[in-house]
């Protein structure tokens, strides 16, 4: 079996980290593991892919691959697929990779499965209903089977190898150069990144109004090594920026401790935080589904519990 991993070239991005997780897991299937990385930085990323188990990496550094939404990369990937015939292609669940995967499915007539948390030869697994049930899916139809995998599904481990790097042509037809990125805006999040924090303090509707998020900022500052997240409901309501959103759309986190403050526990949110080592929930509603996940649940008013907790933490830390 020949398994390909479609890699994200930007170091530090979720897609890049997920690429290394996918290579690690793909190694264990026992077939040939190769990668395709397209966009600026690809050749550099290809070396890292080699360390994580890819024996060959098709790399294209040309900005054309990242400047056109999905189309240019899908065109190049399709040409590689026709030439080298992989049986399965794994994509990280990221904005860019999903766009490429979805177009490839139409080009090859291949099945496409999204949100996978596990995969094997011709099979994949996904969690539904906020992780309450695990579904095993058999993938049929023509190769390559296309599977898009959620971040942090596997622990990345280098294998210590090195890859043969093959340059990918940047000759892309005009019809694949239409939806063009004209300018990029980076909004640097202040402080610690959510994905890197040891403790994540997240808020939902139960905080009642946007101003009360500062209570979470104060708690996170007192704990240290902590970052503040939010549910889709409060992001959609405009309380906090999208960069803070944890869940299906948004970030996936896996901290040592996750504090869910005023969060009921909608599926959309749970998929982004359920793999946290420990979960603490504070909610007024004793029946809130979040309590089914919590190692410690406090039924109470978040607006009282959080300031008191900040003081307790300060006391304990001396």
């Amino acid at each position, binding site marked *: 079996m020949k398994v390909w991993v479609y890699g994200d070239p930007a170091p530090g991005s*979720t897609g890049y980290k997920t690429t290394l997780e996918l290579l690690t897991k793909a190694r264990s299937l026992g077939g040939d593991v190769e990668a395709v990385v397209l966009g600026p930085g690809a050749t550099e990323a290809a070396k890292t892919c080699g360390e994580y188990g890819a024996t060959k990496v098709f790399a294209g550094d040309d900005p054309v691959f990242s400047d*056109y*939404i999905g*189309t240019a990369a899908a065109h190049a990937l399709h040409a590689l697929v026709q030439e080298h015939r992989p049986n399965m292609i794994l994509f990280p669940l990221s*904005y860019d990779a*999903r*766009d490429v995967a*979805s*177009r490839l499915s*139409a080009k090859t007539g291949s099945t*496409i*499965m*999204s949100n996978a948390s596990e995969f094997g030869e011709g099979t994949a697994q996904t969690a539904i*209903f906020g992780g*309450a*049930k695990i*579904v*095993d*899916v*058999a*993938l*049929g139809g023509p190769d390559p089977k296309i599977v898009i995998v959620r971040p942090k599904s596997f622990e990345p481990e280098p294998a210590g190898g090195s890859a043969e790097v093959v340059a990918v042509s940047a000759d892309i037809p005009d*019809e694949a150069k*239409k*939806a*063009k*990125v*004209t300018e*990029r*805006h980076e*909004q640097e*999040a202040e402080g610690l990144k959510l994905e890197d924090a*040891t*403790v994540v303090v997240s808020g939902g509707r139960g905080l009642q109004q946007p101003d009360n998020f500062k209570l979470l900022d104060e708690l996170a500052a007192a*704990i*240290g090594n*902590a970052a503040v997240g939010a549910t889709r409901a409060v992001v*959609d309501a405009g309380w906090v920026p*999208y960069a803070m959103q944890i869940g*299906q*759309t948004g970030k996936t986190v896996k901290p*040592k*401790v996750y504090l869910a403050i005023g969060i009921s526990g*909608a*599926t959309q949110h749970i998929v982004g935080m359920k793999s946290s080592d*420990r*979960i603490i929930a*504070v909610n007024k509603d004793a029946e809130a589904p979040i*309590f089914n*996940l919590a*190692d*410690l*649940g*406090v039924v109470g008013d978040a607006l009282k*519990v959080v300031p008191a*907790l900040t003081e*307790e*933490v300060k*006391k*304990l830390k001396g």
Partner: protein
Amino acid sequence: MNVIVCVKQVPDPNNPYELTGDHRLKRDGGQNVLDPGDEFGVEAALKLTEAGGEVTVVSMGPPQAMEAIRRALSMGAHKGVLVSDDSLVGADALVTAKVLAAAIGTQTYDLIIAGVESTDGYTGTVPGTLAELLGLPQATFAKELDIKDGTLHIQRQTENGYDDVECPLPAVVTVTAGVNEPRYPTFKGIMQAKQKPVDQPSLSDLGLSGDDTAPTQTIAKVEPAPARGAGEKVEDDGTGAAKIAAFLKEAKVI
């Protein structure tokens, strides 16, 4: 300017989801709604056609998905297309995209709008596959969109901010929740929606055969996820904060 909006009827996300005996999402509970994510797409289409043109909502689903189409029509969309066929029960993302592409292929349009992903399945791949099947570019994850001089401009959500994207028409655009404030249907809108035309082509009308619509994924099994260890749940009697602090200390994060 004519705009197509792809919509889906989903079980009300405010209720717990259930599976049928053959592992499919239960859709006949009577509590189905137009996917809340699609309301943003309908609203965007209505705004873009204020100066003229029509909004057509297109859906694939069981017969009761007509209610979701009527909801979009009551918001102000002009007409609908519903593709419903027993052979499409259990259709995967590729089959869904093929059916939508065939249904949209019979329409005239400048822009196709879809939600970023559905609220029930959240696969998120149908719009991209649809775009490829129709030979169109895709502008995805729009948190702002506008059309100037026949060119689509969006702000595309990214991991660390957003990108400005320009795209000639026709194109497929996917919109995030929050791109606008969807209107509520008025009483007049609800009454008018009942009279608006909804085309219901068969698969053969669309030139599709059984081979086109055979699903390529089968569900082998569904099992409950391994349960987390039963946690402690306490009523806050003023000591809740101290209990959490002790837990954090024990977890060695403070």
